[in-house]
Structures are given as C-alpha cells and as structure tokens.
C-alpha cells in the first residue's frame, strides 16, 4: 500500500498532539531560558529584559571551564562504568529462569523509586568512618582501622553509578532478550570460549544499543546535582550544582540560564559526535 501525502489540514491531525507537547514542554521553556540568558541582572535578585553577552563572558573563565570539563568527565565515567557493569549483568539476567528475572527486575525497580537524597545519605552513611563498611572490613581483619571513604571522587562516582545502574539495565534488557541465543552458541561451536563469544559476538551485535545507552546514561548523569554535593568536596561539584547555586541561592537567573544553555549545547555537540562516529563505523 502506498501512502498518500497529507493534503488537508485534517491529514496533519495526528501530528498535533506531539507537536503541542513538544512546544509546551520543550520549545517554550528552552526559549525562555535562552531569552533569560541574555537579560541584564539587577541587584536584589531581579533581572530586566536586555540583550547582553556579559553572562556568557563571565562563564568563559578558567574556573568555569574546569567545572565544565569535570562535569563532562564525570558523566562520561559514570556512563562507561554503568554500561560495563550492566552489560554482562543483563546478559546473565536474560539467561536466568523467568522467576529469577522477575525478582531481579523488581529489585532494580525499587532502587529506581529511591530519591537522590536518600541514595546520597545512605551512601554517606555506608562510607562514613563511624558506621561505614570499613568497620566490616576491620571486623573480618582486612583493614586495621575504620576510615571515612567520603567525601571524595570515588564516593560521588559510586553513588551516581548506583543511581543510574537500574536505568541502564532496563534499557539494555529488551535488546539482550531479543538477541538470538544461537549466535553465541554458533560462536562456541566455531571454537570461541563463552567469554570470547560475549566480546566478539554479543557486544558487536549490540553496538547501536550500547551507544544509545551510553548517551542516555551520560545525559542522565550530567543532570545530577545532589549526589556531588552530598558525597563530594567542592572540587567535585558539577556544572549542575553551580547552576542550581546561581539560580536558587545567588538569585542570578540570567547567569544560571547562560550556563544551562551552554551545557545543553556542549551536550548536543558531544552526542552528535558520538552518533557520527557510530554511523561511520557502521558503513566500514
């Protein structure tokens, strides 16, 4: 059946709903933000409509450059850790019995229901000197004295990976379930050990899914602003933390908006670059 090109206004009907949603929830807020980022800040937390570049100029400093770099590095690290952990995990999960799969997925979903605040404070307790996991290690004789594992980069990373892990599994799960199990079996009959078969059959066959998951976790991690504050030192604060700080505590909306716009642009650029490289790899 050949599809007719739409002719009357009614033919465009099905487009109205998504178009409206996109306008109301994305175009309008983002447009407002771009506008605000060019406004002039007044003393006392107000701003007046104007067209000034000063908000962006202030951003172009070594300090904010470092924060931006750290934020991107952290988000990329979180994304890679999540995928590296979740891929074998999910692969094993798809090989389990139906019952075991349901139990695991329910467990993961319950982690999703925890708020960032709870996750942050739970890990800060676990990483503390007085009540943390190091006490367990001392008890079984691996360590000499309990030690605080936070604040620090490791703590931030752990908390964020913990938070993003269930999403990663849920995104990878359908693709891995659909993957033909005879592919790995074929690899095994052709002389590949199960481990090698995983790396040279499962991973390449799932390339596109893996890239999409990396991007999703990266963006998810970029927006995290509570965990770096709870589990990290000021040098571990991300751009999201600074944006929140400017917007809420310093009442500097124009500057916060400028940083947010910049973050969105950098993110879009990185994502397009990843997709571009992925596309090129496919042709080769």
């Amino acid at each position, binding site marked *: 059946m050949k599809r007719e090109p739409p002719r009357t206004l009614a033919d465009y009907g099905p487009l109205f709903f998504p178009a409206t949603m996109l306008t109301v929830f994305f175009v309008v807020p983002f447009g407002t933000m771009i506008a605000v980022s060019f406004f002039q800040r007044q003393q006392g937390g107000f701003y007046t409509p104007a067209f000034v570049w000063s908000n962006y100029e202030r951003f172009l400093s070594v300090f904010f450059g470092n924060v931006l770099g750290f934020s991107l590095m952290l988000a990329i690290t979180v994304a890679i850790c999540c995928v590296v952990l979740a891929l074998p995990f999910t692969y094993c999960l798809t090989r389990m019995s139906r019952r075991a799969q349901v139990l695991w997925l329910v467990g993961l979903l319950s982690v999703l229901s925890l708020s960032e605040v709870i996750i942050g404070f739970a890990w800060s307790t676990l990483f503390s000197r007085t009540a943390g996991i190091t006490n367990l290690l001392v008890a079984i004789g691996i360590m000499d004295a309990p030690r605080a594992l936070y604040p620090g980069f490791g703590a931030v990373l752990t908390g964020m990976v913990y938070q993003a892990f269930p999403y990663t599994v849920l995104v990878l799960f359908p693709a891995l379930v659909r993957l*033909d199990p*005879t*592919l790995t*079996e*074929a*690899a*095994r*009959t*052709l*002389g*590949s*050990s*199960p481990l*090698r078969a995983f790396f*040279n*059959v499962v991973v*390449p*066959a799932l*390339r596109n899914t893996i890239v999409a998951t990396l991007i999703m976790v990266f963006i998810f991690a970029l927006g995290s602003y509570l965990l770096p504050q709870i589990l990290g030192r000021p040098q571990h604060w991300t751009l999201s933390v600074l944006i929140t700080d400017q917007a809420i505590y310093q009442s500097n909306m124009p500057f916060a908006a400028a940083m947010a716009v910049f973050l969105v642009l950098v993110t879009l650029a990185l994502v397009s670059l990843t997709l571009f490289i992925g596309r090129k790899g496919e042709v080769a």
Partner: protein
Amino acid sequence: MSGLVLKDISKRFGSFTAVSHVDISVPHGTFVCMLGPSGCGKTTLLRMIAGLDEPSEGAILLDGADITPIPTHKRNLGMVFQSLALFPHLNVAENIAYPLRIRGVAKEDQKKRVDELLQMIHLQGYGERPVSKLSGGQRQRVAIARALALSPKLFLLDEPLSALDAKLREAMQVELRQLQQRLGITTIVVTHDQREAMTMADTVVVMNGGEIRQAASPVDIYRNPADTFVADFIGSTNLLEMSADSAGRATILGKPMAGLKLPTGLAKASVSIRPEDLHLTAPGGDAIDGTVTFIRDLGGTIETFIDVSGQSIVAVSTPRARPEVSVGQKVGVVLPDEACVVLKR
C-alpha cells in the same frame, strides 16, 4: 572404533524425558539423517553431540575418546543452526573467517581458505556483501562454509533446509550430499522431511518420543520397517490388520494368506504394504474384494483409493500400468506375499 558413538544417552528437563537411552554408532564418513515428528528430541540429541546441552546420562565417544566432559569450543565440530546464526555485524568473508580468526590462523592463510570455501559454495565475489543482503539459499551456503572452515571431524546440521522453497531445497539436498561425499566428513542432519532423509543419508535414524525406533539404510527402512510407527512415518503405506482364523491360518481382511505367518504366540499383527506393491484385478478368486472410491491422477502417478469393508486402501501405479477402473467399480486387490511386512502391533 573411529567415528561417533552415543552410549545410552538420556536427557531429562525436570521430570520430562526428552531423549531416552539412545545407543547408536556412526562410522567415520557416514551421512546420518535423524528423522522424527516434531518434539521427538532430535534437536536435543544434536545439541548434546555438540556439547551445547549436557546429557543427564550416558557418554559420547568420538574416535574412541570420551568427549562428554569437553566443552563445545574444544570439540572440533561444525554446526549449522536452524536459524543459521550468521553474525549480523560481519560480512560474508568475515563470517566464514570467524573460526579461523579465533584459532589465530595467519591473515594470508585466512584469506586463502575463505576464497577456497567461497568457491566451494559457488559464491565467489560475494565476500564483501553484508549477510543481510543475501538470499535464503546463499545464506544457507555461507553457514555451511563457516561450519566447515576448520575441516571439523563432525558436521552437524539442524533442519538446515527447512526455510527454503521446495525446488531450492531439493537442489541443496543433492549439493550437500555431494559435498559430504567429497570431503568424507561424518555428518548428522536433523530433519522432519522423510524425502530429504532418503535423498541424502547413508543411515536414517527414525526417532519418536525421545527413543530411536530404527536406524538403517534408507532402502532398509523403507522395505523392512521395524514397527508400525516407522512404516507409517516413512513414505505412505497401507497398515492392515492380520489375525488368525479358526484353523490358525493368517488372514487379512477375511482372506487367508497362505504365504504369511503370524509372529509366534500372537493372534494379531499388522501388515504394512506399500501402495505401489498392490495389484488390482477383477474381483473374486484369491483377491480381496473392494470398491473404488476415488481416483487421483497426479500426472506421474495414479492413486486409486479402494474401500474394503470399511478400511481404505491406496494403490499407486504409473500411467502406463493404469488400471482400467472407474469410481464405484468392484475390484480385486492382490497383496503379493513378498511385499507384505508383518509387524507386531
């Protein structure tokens, strides 16, 4: 003994027995077809030979060595899956080279071998194609070439031709058989198409309900089926009841059969007679009387359906020997003694 030996192999999934007490030996270089209805355990048996499933009981011997505990990737076998399982991220040449790459074969040798294999499957020049851009038959050949790349000791195929249309399937059957004979490789093919099994196999293994019912050459299976299941499953046959009359003589449909004997100690048995072995004559005399109910002219063969006191009998003849009968006519059916196979029921 050189070749493959299965010793008392059983496989249970929970309380369900998929394969029970299979004993069979396959001499080196033999082409075996495993044949049976759906769910009879053919795939399970093949997977155990490949090492993808572990037998619950029994041992598998290859050239005298017990390979039961050896993992799949060290068994040196080639397997073609029903889904073919070609790697979607690799092109034709890379798919075929995969086992060579895994074994660390040098790049130039890989290329040489791949070219050789592409030539063997008549796909020269297709090396750079993605596998998704091949036809069903071409994919089939690529899967076969990939499985044979390392010249394995054992070649296993699970319903390799079932996805192809009838014409192509027949061509591939012949091709596969010729390839096997040229390479002299021990081959086991699972199928549920009995024509396919008869075309290719040295030995046909008929399975039902997880058990082997008969393992013999195609002609033997066809001429001397071991039981009524095999007789009915291989080709078409007329299964008639044989019983003893008051004088103890064997009778079929009320006619005494002087040349046949009931198995000792049994009052009843079955007789299998192939449709092409029946003769039709005028009613009366030694023949069994019946009425022609339907005639099917298939061009190459003519099938005549005859009703004998409620039992339907089929006779097949060639157009030259076309019986001069019409529907509704009374005819006599002659069962030559030598064509009747007496089976326990």
